[in-house]
C-alpha cells in the first residue's frame, strides 16, 4: 500500500516537472483545450438562461379570454360566473378594460401613444387558470370557451412557451453535437501531446524498461499528464465562460432595463462546473491512454 502510494507520488511529481518544464507548450495546449471546451459550455449557459427566463411562464396552464368590444359589464359578469362553475377551471381573474389600458400605459412605455387614443381599444378580459396542464385538454378547453356568446377570442398563453421550449430543445441538441465533436478534439489534443512526450522520453522509457519497470509504471506519469492537462484546460474554459458572461451581462442589463426587467445571465452552476472539470480530466486521461497504449509497445530496449 505504501509502495503503491510512493509510486503514485513519484508519477505525479514527474508529471508536474514535465508540465512546468515546458511552460509555453503547456500554456498553449491548455488554451486550446480551454477554448474548445468553452464553446459548448458557453452555449449551454446561454440556453440554460433562456430556459429559466421562459420557464416561469411556460408552466402555468393559463388561457386569456377576450370579450367582444360591445359586451356590457353585466354580460362580462355572467361569463365570469359561468367560468367559475366550469368543472375544469380552477380560478378566474377579471381584468376590466380600463385597468388593462392603465397597465399598458405603465409597463410598455407607451404612455404618449395611449394618451393620444380617442377611446379605449382594449376589451374586457378574463384570465383563466385550468386545473390540468395537459396541452391537449387545454386546447379542447380553448375551443369550447371560444364558442360562448360575447367571447371574441381565446388565447392559450402556453403556446409561445411551447414553441420556445421546442427551440430550446433543438439548441440543446446542437450543443450536444458540438460538445461531442470538441470532445473528440480534446482526445486528439491530449493524445498528440502525449505522443510527442513519449518520443522525447524515449531514452528514459528504454532505461526504465531495462531495470524492471512494468508497463503501468511507465504509463502512469503520461496518464497523469493527460488528466492534469485536461483538468487545467477545463478550468481555463470555466474562466473563459465566466469572463464572457461578465462582459455580456453589462449589455444584458442595459437591454433588460429597456424592457423594465432586471434579468441577468447567471453563471454555470457549481454542479455543472464540477461536471465540466471531471469530463475534461476524463477525456484528457482517455486520450493519453489511447496514445500510450499505441506508442509504448514500440519502444523496447535493444
Amino acid at each position, binding site marked *: 500500500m*505504501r*509502495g*503503491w502510494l*510512493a*509510486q503514485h507520488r*513519484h508519477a505525479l511529481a514527474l508529471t508536474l516537472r514535465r508540465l512546468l518544464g515546458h511552460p509555453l507548450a503547456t500554456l498553449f495546449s491548455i488554451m486550446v483545450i480551454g477554448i474548445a471546451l468553452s464553446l459548448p459550455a458557453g452555449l449551454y449557459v446561454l440556453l440554460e438562461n433562456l430556459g429559466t427566463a421562459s420557464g416561469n411562464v411556460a408552466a402555468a396552464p393559463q388561457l386569456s379570454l377576450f370579450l367582444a368590444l360591445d359586451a356590457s359589464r353585466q354580460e362580462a359578469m355572467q361569463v365570469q360566473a359561468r367560468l367559475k362553475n366550469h368543472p375544469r377551471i380552477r380560478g378566474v381573474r377579471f381584468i376590466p378594460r380600463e385597468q388593462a389600458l392603465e397597465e399598458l400605459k405603465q409597463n410598455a412605455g407607451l404612455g404618449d401613444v395611449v394618451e393620444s387614443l380617442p377611446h379605449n381599444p382594449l376589451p374586457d378580459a378574463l384570465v383563466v387558470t385550468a386545473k390540468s396542464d395537459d396541452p391537449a385538454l387545454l386546447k379542447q378547453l380553448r375551443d369550447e370557451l371560444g364558442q360562448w356568446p360575447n367571447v371574441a377570442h381565446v388565447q392559450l398563453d402556453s403556446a409561445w412557451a411551447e414553441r420556445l421550449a421546442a427551440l430550446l430543445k433543438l439548441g440543446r441538441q446542437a450543443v450536444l453535437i458540438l460538445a461531442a465533436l470538441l470532445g473528440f478534439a480534446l482526445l486528439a489534443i491530449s493524445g498528440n501531446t502525449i505522443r510527442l512526450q513519449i518520443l522525447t522520453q524515449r*531514452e*528514459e522509457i*528504454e*532505461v*526504465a*524498461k*531495462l*531495470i*524492471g*519497470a*512494468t*508497463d503501468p*509504471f511507465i504509463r502512469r506519469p503520461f496518464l497523469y499528464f493527460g488528466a492534469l492537462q485536461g483538468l487545467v484546460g477545463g478550468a481555463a474554459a470555466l474562466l473563459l465562460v465566466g469572463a464572457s458572461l461578465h462582459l455580456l451581462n453589462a449589455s444584458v442589463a442595459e437591454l433588460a432595463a429597456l424592457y423594465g426587467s432586471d434579468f441577468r445571465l447567471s453563471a454555470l452552476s457549481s454542479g455543472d462546473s464540477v461536471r465540466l472539470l471531471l469530463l475534461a480530466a476524463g477525456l484528457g486521461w482517455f486520450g493519453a491512454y489511447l496514445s500510450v497504449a499505441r506508442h509504448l509497445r514500440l519502444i*523496447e*530496449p*535493444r
Partner: protein
Amino acid sequence: MIGFSQVHKRYPGGFEALKGLTFEVAQGEMVFLTGHSGAGKSTLLKLIAAIELPSAGSVIVNGQNVGKLRRSAIPYLRRNLGLIFQDHKLLFGRTVLENVMLPLQIGGFESAEAGRRCRAALDKVGLLGREKAYPVTLSGGEQQRLCIARAIVNRPAILLADEPTGNLDSTYGDEIMELFRSFNQVGVTMLIATHDDALIGRYNARALHLHQGELVP
C-alpha cells in the same frame, strides 16, 4: 542460477549470433565471458535479461524459462538482475541520486528506505558526496561506477556486466574488478563479458570462450 541448453539465436536477416550453447552458472559463481567483438557476448547477456528471446533452446534464470515468460512477467525477472552496460545508459536529465533511485521507485520503495539504500550503494562505489551532480559532470570511470551503483541498489542475486572496463584505463578497470569481486564475496552471482584476456588471468575464475557464436574450450 543460470542455465542455457541448446540455445540458438538467429536475428532477422539470417545472422546466427549464437549456435547451440549449453552451459550452467551456479549460484554465487563468478564467470567471465570472453571472445572477440561480434562473438555473441552481448547477445548472450541480452537473452538472460529477456531483452532478446532465443530462436531455439531454453534459457533458465532462477528456475524460470525466460523465453516462455509472459510480457507482463519480464519486469519482475529484470528486478532480480543487475545490468551493467558498456555505454552506462544513464539518464542525463537526472542527478546521480535520482539515477540510483530509479530502480527503487520502480519497485515502489518508501523514500526514507530508498534514500538509505541509495547512499549505501553510492558509498560502495565511492560516489557518496556527488549525489546532486549530473552524470555529464562525471568522468568515464565515475559514470561506470554510477551505473554499477544503480545495478546493485536493488540488491539483485545476479549481476550481468557487458564490457564494464571496456572504455577505461587499467587503473579504473582494476578498481571496478575489485568491486565486482567484493560483490561476489557476499554471494552475488556474476557474469562478466570482456574481451580483455589479461583481466581474467589475474582472477581465479571460470571463463567461457565464445567464438563465432559457439563455446570453445
